């Protein structure tokens, strides 16, 4: 497969979507999806970190000795995470409180390490930047999907706006942790189902 922007885009958003197909970065995907606003902030933060750490690591790829590349990757990622953390703390203090330690945990988010190992190590900077960016978008889209359903059913709000003109009983299970596990299971199920059907069609041809 070539590495132009289009294939990178398709691969990160669907074919190898980090959350629902590769099951990476699940920790934060589950923890911050009780509110859409939190997921959006988290998603944008992660997008920023993956994109720029991929860019940096790809630019440095010929200078990093193979043996210590893990620690170099971690430090580069940590540097960008600190920027994101300080930015969120300064401008969105309430969301920073709600996200708690999960912003810091972007460092150990497997998506970023995964992109750095699998892509940025072997490809030039610009395309690595887009690869990281699209991986971040793939993550954010899924997060928003899960968060939207959880927030509507659990709190009766969308992005914090009340939608109580539609009257229904709130689902407490969507607010508590098990709801997150069930939602992500459903998303994975749907994705796997679609993929299986496509494969069958291909085989039939």
């Amino acid at each position, binding site marked *: 497969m070539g590495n132009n922007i289009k294939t990178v885009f398709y691969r990160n958003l669907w074919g190898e979507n980090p959350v629902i197909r590769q*099951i*990476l*970065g*699940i*920790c*934060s995907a*589950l*923890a911050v999806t009780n509110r859409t606003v939190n997921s959006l902030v988290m998603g944008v933060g992660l997008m920023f970190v993956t994109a720029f750490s991929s860019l940096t690591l790809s630019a440095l790829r010929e200078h990093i000795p193979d043996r210590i590349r893990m*620690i170099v990757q*971690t*430090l580069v990622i*940590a*540097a960008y*995470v*600190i920027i994101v*953390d*300080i930015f969120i703390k300064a401008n969105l203090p309430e969301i920073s409180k709600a996200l*708690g*330690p999960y912003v*810091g*945990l972007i*460092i*150990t*988010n*497997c998506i970023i*390490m995964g992109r750095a190992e699998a892509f940025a190590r072997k490809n030039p900077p610009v395309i690595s930047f887009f690869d990281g960016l699209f991986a971040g978008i793939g993550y954010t889209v899924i997060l928003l999907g899960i968060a939207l359903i959880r927030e509507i059913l659990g709190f009766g709000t969308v992005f914090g706006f009340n939608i109580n003109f539609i009257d229904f009983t709130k689902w407490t299970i969507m607010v*508590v*942790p*098990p*709801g*997150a*596990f*069930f939602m*992500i*299971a459903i998303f*994975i*199920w*749907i994705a*796997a*189902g679609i993929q*299986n059907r496509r494969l069958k069609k291909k085989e039939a041809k």
Partner: protein
Amino acid sequence: MTPQINPFIIFFASIITSNMVLSNFLGMCSFISVSNEFKTASGLGKAVTLVMVFTTVINYVVYQYIVLPLGLEYLRYVVFIIVIAASVQIIELAMDRFLPELHIKLGIFLPLITVNCAILGISLFMVIRNYNFWQSLLFGLGSGLGWWLAISTLAAIREKTGKSKIPQGLVGPGLTFIIIGLMALAFMGFSGIFVIQ
């Protein structure tokens, strides 16, 4: 400042009601990928518990006596990561020298643990909640044991489901998440017994 909670309440709460993986979603990656087989899962659980207690104590000391006095709070992520990576290395070396049998059993898991977000998460929670030394120590120990309990339970259930007939799209991660969801519901049944935070 320091919350006045009995450290033992923190200990039991972090095993059951605020279980690291089932209510805080930490350490999911290895939780999903290393839970096919009971024996390996249990081994990883032991290794995580060991590293968690170690790193919580070291991170507490480093944070209180080096990072805070120097006013370097914003560097805490980097400091914690380096401490974790270094202590995993030291534990591995020490184990190889003094407990070679245990090293053969747990050795393969140790490098994996460096990137386990539960370990970093514990240190961050410790800082955010302002725990004192004993609270941190028992919090680390309890969280490790809770993680071990959760991954062994999941692995035991998954070994059984491997033989049953399930919808094709659910095979693998899908079913695992549903099992974890049900486990989380079961653990929530204890809520109200211990409260932390």
